[in-house]
């Protein structure tokens, strides 16, 4: 039997995402690393009470990383659509208070929760989640707000904060190419959070520009071996940045 993890569409690949699910998605430095088609499919599906683990809470009021200055599709559209109950992030709001995101507006109304995590701690908690490490001590945040309520221990002459692992039900991963076994390669800075997130969820769904046959990807550059990946979806418009105005329309 030929093994293939390739699913016909983003809509079908997210069909079992349930109300209350915990979902990881990148969220760093613009739209390059975002699984935009999966996010559009999640909005269409309308699942609610989601917990999103991401670098941001969806920066839907700023256009950085998008040529031409349009607003890219990111998980901000799920927040704006009232589908998100909680966000675990390091960069929940834009730097400018005059341009509040959907998340900030809903937070003021008490309609969404936030767990604020320093960025490196967020990445490491995800890596720990994928690596079977329940918790770890890090110097990051000792003596600051983000350490409040956490165990602090002096190790190596320095205060360290106990941080626990993060895992998810689903991870929406954006990679460049896959083979049909789910091996993934990434492009440039867009690999960022995608690599650790692809190890830390029960169901990992990868959105890619292109699928090739096993053996065609150089094994030396595969960063996510297929054993982590359950489903692969090929983008309808490879490489294109989907904007909020246009979605994935052609």
């Amino acid at each position, binding site marked *: 039997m030929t093994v293939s993890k390739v699913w016909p569409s983003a809509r079908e690949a997210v069909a079992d995402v349930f109300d209350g699910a915990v979902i990881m998605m990148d969220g*760093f*430095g613009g739209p390059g690393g975002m699984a935009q088609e999966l996010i559009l499919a999640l909005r269409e599906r309308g699942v609610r009470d989601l917990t999103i683990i991401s670098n941001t809470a969806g920066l839907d009021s700023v256009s950085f990383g998008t040529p031409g200055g349009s607003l890219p599709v990111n998980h901000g559209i799920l927040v704006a659509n009232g589908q998100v109950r909680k966000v675990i992030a390091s960069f929940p*709001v834009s730097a400018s208070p005059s341009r509040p995101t959907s998340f900030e507006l809903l937070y003021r109304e008490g309609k969404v929760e936030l767990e604020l995590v320093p*960025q*490196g701690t967020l990445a490491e908690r995800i890596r720990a989640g994928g690596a079977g490490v329940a918790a770890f001590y*890090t110097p*990051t945040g000792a003596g*600051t*707000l983000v350490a409040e309520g956490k165990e602090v221990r002096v190790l190596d002459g320095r205060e360290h904060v106990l941080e626990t692992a993060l895992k998810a039900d689903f991870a929406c991963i954006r990679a460049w190419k896959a083979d049909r076994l789910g091996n993934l390669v990434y492009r440039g800075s867009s690999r*960022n959070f995608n690599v650790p997130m692809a190890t830390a969820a029960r169901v990992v769904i990868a959105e890619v520009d292109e699928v090739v046959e096993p053996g065609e990807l150089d094994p030396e550059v595969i960063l996510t071996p297929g054993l982590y990946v359950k489903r692969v979806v090929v983008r309808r418009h490879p490489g294109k940045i989907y904007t909020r105005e246009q979605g994935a329309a052609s």
Partner: protein
Amino acid sequence: MSEKERLSRELMALRLARELKPGMVVNLGIGMPTLVSDYIPHDGSLVLHSENGVIGFGPTPREGEEDPNLVNAGGGFITLLPGGAFVSHADAFAMIRGGHVDVAVLGGLQVSEQGDLANWLVPPRALGSPGGAVDLCVGAKQVFVVMEHTTRDGKPRLVSRCTYSLTGARCVSLVMTDLGLFQVTPQGFLLREIAPGWTAAEVRSLTEAPLAVGPELVEVRA
């Protein structure tokens, strides 16, 4: 006195760039720190590190050559220099915490005379975004801060004790403001260089913490 001209953002960036020496691995924060990259050589003598895993990046690309898969921590478009490399986010922060980054240049809201930094939460706003700054404060060997000397309503940002939520404790060694260059020493702030046309007494009057003046005070020059 408040009518006097202060240092431009460009001159602050240029002066701070001179503190970055060949061989250093440097992380530039979002906002004013990013300007520093306009004044450093992009010949590989200095390695720029970005939180999203770009090691050894170069200047902004020409218009029309922007690549969404080549951005810095602020989502700004960059180029990769020969010899550059990509790592994952987890590895990029392992480099930071692991002590492999020599200097982090960060924006600031307040710096205390002990070198504490507050840079992510401005009351009364309920939310802020610390991003990677908390990790950089504990991991980078040196933290330089670039910020305006006073708030919009004239309050000092160099303080005895930070009143805003801390990003890191006892981590800042150098502060560049629009009034001068300040070293954080075990005895507190030391004014090393001053904005042209200003006196140390004038700068002191806009500084909440005690301010020592270096024996050879010179003006900040382009």
